């Protein structure tokens, strides 16, 4: 068995009476892309927040790079390379594009990020053109690129993305997934939460299906798609 970069073991998240994540276990090997699929309210976002440290877990453990990080706060997790691209992009709209990127590197206090920012701008000439403009004026696609770029500046080991394709046109979704593939090739491990199961399974190495807080299936995209009942219920197959 390969050594896991991230192991989530039987974690539970509860909001009052709502048991959002039930005994969920998953793991992510170095260099992998895994995806967590499921409908609205399946507990996908809660799972990511628990891993990122902004949501408390009731029981279970999260092991990252062989360390139990249950007691770490969100800032420490970011610093050590667990970075989340939140749902709905959530860029800082009254800051400029460049300031958004600076915020990405916030946890790297004394790092010289001039080169990294230039590399981002090389990758996304549109962002470069608007570097001194308010992020509010960006289009939806550009905002998503900025959200991913901002996360890249935090120097992630694992990048977690919460429904990044939400609200994007099919062409932009395709570009986004290509971008995710690219940054994965550059060495980042990816944990992708999606409702766009078709695209997610095309790019992921493995997938998990979450239903009402439980993991009901997991495996390679081929395995998941081969399960007729599963495909029909969750994966948009027929």
């Amino acid at each position: 068995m390969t050594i896991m970069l991230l192991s989530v073991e039987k974690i539970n998240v509860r909001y009052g009476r709502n048991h959002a994540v039930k005994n969920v276990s998953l793991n992510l090997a170095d260099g992998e892309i895994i995806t967590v699929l499921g409908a609205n309210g399946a507990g996908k976002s809660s799972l990511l927040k628990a891993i990122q440290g902004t949501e408390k877990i009731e029981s279970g453990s999260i092991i990252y790079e062989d360390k139990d990080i249950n007691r770490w706060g969100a800032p420490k997790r970011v610093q050590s390379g667990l970075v989340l691209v939140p749902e709905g992009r959530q860029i800082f709209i009254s800051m400029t594009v460049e300031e958004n990127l600076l915020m990405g590197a916030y946890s790297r206090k004394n790092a010289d990020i001039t080169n990294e920012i230039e590399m981002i701008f090389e990758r996304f000439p549109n962002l470069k053109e608007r570097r001194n403009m308010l992020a509010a004026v960006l289009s939806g696609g550009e905002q998503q690129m900025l959200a991913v770029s901002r996360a890249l500046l935090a120097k992630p080991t694992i990048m977690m993305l919460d429904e990044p394709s939400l609200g994007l046109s099919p062409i932009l979704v395709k570009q986004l997934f290509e971008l995710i593939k690219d940054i994965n090739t550059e060495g980042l491990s990816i944990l992708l939460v999606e409702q766009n199961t078709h695209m997610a399974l095309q790019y992921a190495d493995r997938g998990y299906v979450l239903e009402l807080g439980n993991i009901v299936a997991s495996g390679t995209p081929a395995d998941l798609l081969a399960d007729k009942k599963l495909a029909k219920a969750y994966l948009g197959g027929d």
Partner: protein
Amino acid sequence: MSAYMTGIIIILCLNIIIAYSVFLPAAAGQLNLGAAGFMIIGAYTDAYLSSADEGLGLPIALTIPVAALFTGLVGFLMSFPILRTRGVYMILATFAFAEIVAGIVLNMEIVGGASGFPVTTHTELEVLLPVTVVVVLFGFYLISTRFGLSMRSIHDDENVSLLFGVNTHLVKVGAFTIGAFLGGLAGALYGHQFDYIEVQNWGILFSIYVLLYVLIGGTQTPWGPLVGAMFFTFIPEILRAIGDATGIELFTELRFAAFGVIIVGMMVLRPEGIMTRTFLELLFRKSIPKSNIKLS
């Protein structure tokens, strides 16, 4: 300089300092309707420490900083309950704080209660003007720092700021405390200009005006409170001057009504305040490229 002009500049300076005291927390997303409370604490602390007759008679080089620091300390302690609230509830909490401060001071016989308290050390602009300049520079500097960036990120989205490693609680407490410090500073300076302080000077109307300076000026840039305070200080005077020159009643007796109309108009036309970042770009750069390109 005429006494009238000096008077206007004194009021302008005090308005600018108190505007920054509300602006800095506002830049971090906190709406503060408690300016009066901090002003009272600063003014009375300084007056009691410096007054020769009824106070301790200490030199103002000591009492003004001590009064501001003491107000900052009160602000620091108050920030813990107040920062549990948000938005409109925070407005109510800070308002309640100011009312409590006023109530306590009104009933403190040692500082004169309802009859006010005399301030024996008088200063002219030689103290107020340099302090105001320093406060403005400090406001600009703070916003440009890493701390300032984190304040603005909290203003936009507290949860995402946390995601990128901002210690949001610390930054919020810091912004509130610095605001209180500046409010206390404005209060302390006020006494030495007008030689007499009373709680009734700083009621709810005062706090509303200061919050308006900031909101009308704009919370996005440190130009906002400066422009907002100037706007609020000069417009009524300009209206008065126009009225005196033309004899039109609208500008003299009704100038505050006309002023109200201007404020409502500003809120409709520029809800983000006068000094938005886009406006600054227009001022300092020739043009802004249009956003019509989709993706590469």
